[in-house]
């Protein structure tokens, strides 16, 4: 576990970002800002948010969206919302 985020959540977040951008998860650094990824636009962001909604099982609220700068941030949200 790093920074309160498990490796499993980071992998899940990278997979999610990878699907939205059409890039292999291994090519994405969890600490790279999403806006700096090649082909980033708001359509990609929308896809990420729809995927995240299905992972956490509820709509993603604006305060969470505002915190989502990197895949690690997404992992943190997954971690918080999927803990049993």
């Amino acid at each position, binding site marked *: 576990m790093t920074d309160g985020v498990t490796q499993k959540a980071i992998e899940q977040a990278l997979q999610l970002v990878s699907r939205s951008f059409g890039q292999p998860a291994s090519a994405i650094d969890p600490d790279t800002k999403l806006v700096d990824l090649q082909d980033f636009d*708001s*359509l990609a962001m*929308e896809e990420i948010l729809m995927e995240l909604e299905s992972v956490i099982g509820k*709509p993603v609220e604006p305060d969470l*969206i505002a915190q989502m700068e990197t895949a690690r941030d997404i992992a943190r949200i997954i971690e918080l919302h999927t803990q049993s």
Partner: protein
Amino acid sequence: MKLQRRVRPFSLDIGGLHLRSMRASDACQSMVDGLNHTKVARAINFVDGEFNIEKLRAFISGFDNVQRYLVGIFPKGRTTPVGFYRVEIGPRHKTAHLMVAVTDIGWLGKGLFHATCDAVCNEFFERRDVEKITSHVNTRNYMMLAHMTTTRFKLEGKLRKEVIGPGGERLDQYIFSWVKGE
């Protein structure tokens, strides 16, 4: 003495874009197609979703450039709009309600709102006597929510079951606002 209503069409250049008040003659098939596109209709809550040229002309004619503005977004050198802002002013309280739509699907996700939002809002703050602008966004309109979180608009709250969605269901909306000077 009765005050004259002052018609002031909107006109603004922002980078490679020209934003101006739309005229009925701007109604075109590409805009009709855009408004009827599922993704656009769902985002802006045009429930009937069945525009045609005549309906679009009538819709555009309903804006008076006094309290109701329909501002088309035109890439320079192009005569058909790729989107628009709809702004309705409440003069008593110097408020305005804003919504934006991208009607050319090829421009979806390309940052039109991000590129133009500040300048459009500042125009209403500085030249049209508006002190607060609000915008409602459906809770699952993620593209717009993602944009809103990067602007100077602040989240004010959530309106429960505020509007009727395309499928007839009532939808929640977030309300964002930007107060002049903040």
